[in-house]
């Protein structure tokens, strides 16, 4: 069984994000980019399943400009067997990503699709377990048991394969890509597609009107009595 994992090149989580002066988006020029931490977790889970003998191959997929190949190489260095790069220089909105992914699934026919965070199951008509904090695969019965982190606690689902799983931070601790593996990853194959070759039209059905910084957090006020607190909650914060 093959496992397909999507990995996305995003602004590194430790970088201080700035909004562009023209408010059309955030500054990405000269900013450090890394693999989305959720994608790292997804890839780690796929690698563990393969290492336990339940899958034959892990395919890493990334969509975006040519620099996405660097992120793919990191995925290959972690242990993915081969990569697929769908070249797209304009922004890809989630529905376009899902449509492209659907085509790739039809070509590669994986038994499991493990993603950081991405909608796709509806288009494939596959069962899905989101916010997974534990994944147990039963290859014989072709069933995967997923523990989901939900607001009330943990929900356990049993999904027939092929299935979609998206990750929660608690799922695993991703491995480091070691230097020898990074060197080996240079010779692992990356297949390139364009959306046109996959017969997917990239139509953006969303338009970004404006991006602004969140309002600066005002400093707190220490009140001197309960009455003052009630007064402020009622008349200033308007919450009671």
């Amino acid at each position, binding site marked *: 069984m093959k496992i397909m994992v999507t990995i996305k090149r995003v602004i590194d989580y*430790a970088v*201080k994000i700035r909004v562009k*002066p023209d408010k059309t988006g955030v500054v990405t020029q*000269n900013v*450090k980019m890394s693999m989305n931490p959720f994608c790292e977790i997804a890839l780690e889970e796929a690698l563990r399943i393969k290492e336990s003998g339940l899958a034959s191959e892990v395919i890493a997929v990334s969509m975006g400009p040519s620099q996405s190949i660097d992120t793919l190489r990191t995925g290959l260095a972690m242990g993915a067997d081969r990569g697929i790069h769908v070249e797209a220089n304009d922004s890809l909105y989630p529905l376009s990503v899902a449509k492209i992914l659907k085509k790739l699934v039809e070509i590669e026919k994986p038994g499991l699709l493990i993603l950081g965070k991405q909608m796709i199951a509806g288009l494939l008509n596959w069962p899905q377990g989101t916010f997974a904090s534990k994944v147990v695969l039963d290859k014989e019965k072709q069933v995967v048991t997923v523990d989901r982190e939900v607001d009330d606690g943990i929900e356990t689902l049993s999904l027939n394969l092929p299935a979609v799983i998206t990750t929660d931070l608690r799922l695993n601790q991703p*491995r*480091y890509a*070691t230097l*020898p593996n990074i*060197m080996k990853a240079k010779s692992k194959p990356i297949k390139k597609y364009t959306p046109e070759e996959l017969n997917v039209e990239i139509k953006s059905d969303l338009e970004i009107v404006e991006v602004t910084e969140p309002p600066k957090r005002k400093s707190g006020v220490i009140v001197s009595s309960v009455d003052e607190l009630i007064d402020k909650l009622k008349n200033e914060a308007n919450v009671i």
Partner: protein
Amino acid sequence: MLKFISHFLKSKSNLKSTLSNSRVPISRNFCTTPIRDSIQYDVVIVGAGPAGLSAAIRLKQLCRQNDTDLSVCVLEKGAEVGAHILSGNVFEPRALNELLPQWKQQEAPITTPVSSDKFWFLTKNRAISLPSPFNNEGNYVISLSQLVRWMGAKAEELGVEIYPGFAASEILYDANNKVIGIGTNDMGISKDGSKKENFQRGVEIKGRMTLLSEGCRGSLSEQIMKKYNLREKGGAEHQTYALGIKEVWEIDEEKHQPGAVLHTLGWPLDHKTYGGSFLYHMKDRQIALGLVVALNYQNPFMNPYEEFQKLKHHPAIKPYLEGGTVIQYGARTLNEGGFQSIPYPVFPGGAIIGCSAGFLNVPKIKGTHTAMKSGMLAAEAAFGAVNEGLDMNTYWDALRNSWIWEELYKARNYRPAFKYGLIPGLALSGLEHYILKGRHPITLKHGKPDHEATNAAQLHSPIHYPKPDGILSFDVPTSLHRSNTNHEHDQPPHLRLRDPKIPELTNLPVYAAPESRYCPARVYEYVAAEQNKLKLQINAQNCLHCKACDIKDPKQNIKWTVPEGGGGPGYSVM
């Protein structure tokens, strides 16, 4: 007892998963520490900075010229090339013109020529214009982090292998005490020393020649210089240092003059403290602003970060910043020892290049061009050594016959003159600059080493620094956030105390804890512990890798070692 057992079992099971990851059959007997992978190269370079990348590029150029090839590996502890690079920077392209003469056509990020050169003496409220001692014609205002990124790409095009995110933590020796390469950090070790789920053993990167280009006060370079007595061998004095604290601002269009260069002396520093500020206009409405403070300051209550915040409120500086925003913040120490402090840079199996040896021209305040040239000269010697069995010591001869030597010799007395105080220093510097030009046999010696220069706290009174206003001046956490610094928090602290009792027994009572003031990242804090005593807390995660603590700690008790690769600041426009 139980804790020991659970640690042992935990590490055993981690070991098992490590072994199965590397596809070693479980049935094989394992030792408690797995053997490291070993990878062999012709030349190993530690640090992807201007010196290291110049050496790498030069090596590959020599290979092409001589129709041969050498494998070159550059290791970089930052998460990407350029992430740990911070510098003023008014760039003199002399070495780059020799290395990559087509840099302009190849679109190097060197596009803003110096357009004006001002020099002010600041008092609390005024700025007195002085004749500029610099000659920056032909130089450019750049972001060194950006230039190094570009150089990294050029190096890779030539076939150099660069691996960011890997920290060289150990030197490897053969049975004859010759350096044969380096070892990278083990990754995935928890704060208490036990192995985590994702433990990965480091690797050995072996080289027939190892070049150390770790920048100022490089951790491995310092080790090597001690081991092979390179300072004595070169007849060198101790190195002296300064701490540079820098911000990049995006300012109002009308206030921006691309290529404008400004240096100041005087306020906020006193007459006993050497240092000054810089304000350089880059492109895209960005300016680089910083304060450099020599680390042989005497008053333990001095806080270089707070002095920098004060500077920004000066009536002559403030107008540039009003209406602007800070994009990045960072700090790094730099060499001020110049000619007198150059160690013998060759050791069995390798050499030291760039600021790790120390080729910064202090009166020019430029070290990039000499660092690059030293990398090129070392590459030429290394090529001869690896390819034809020639002597690596020819690097030392090449240095002494190069323009680096000539330049640093001429500049040798400016900084040492200031040990007599600000006014005598300025007077002597004026004499040197306008009349003597270094053409005389006198070579002034340095004063005390920086860490010995700190007076006991009782000789001074605490300095009151104003609170930050949040618009021009900021608190350390806010600034730190702008350095994009991060480390995996669950790892052993990389700042090691040789004697854990000295902070509370000496630093705090005698010197009033100077580390809580000179560290630009607030790594060192004294917090209330049991019995109302104060205890040192090391917030290693904040570390900017500036090395100030390694230099300035009065008892040299703090040792900076390299943390897990990939951590530290994330500079992109510094």
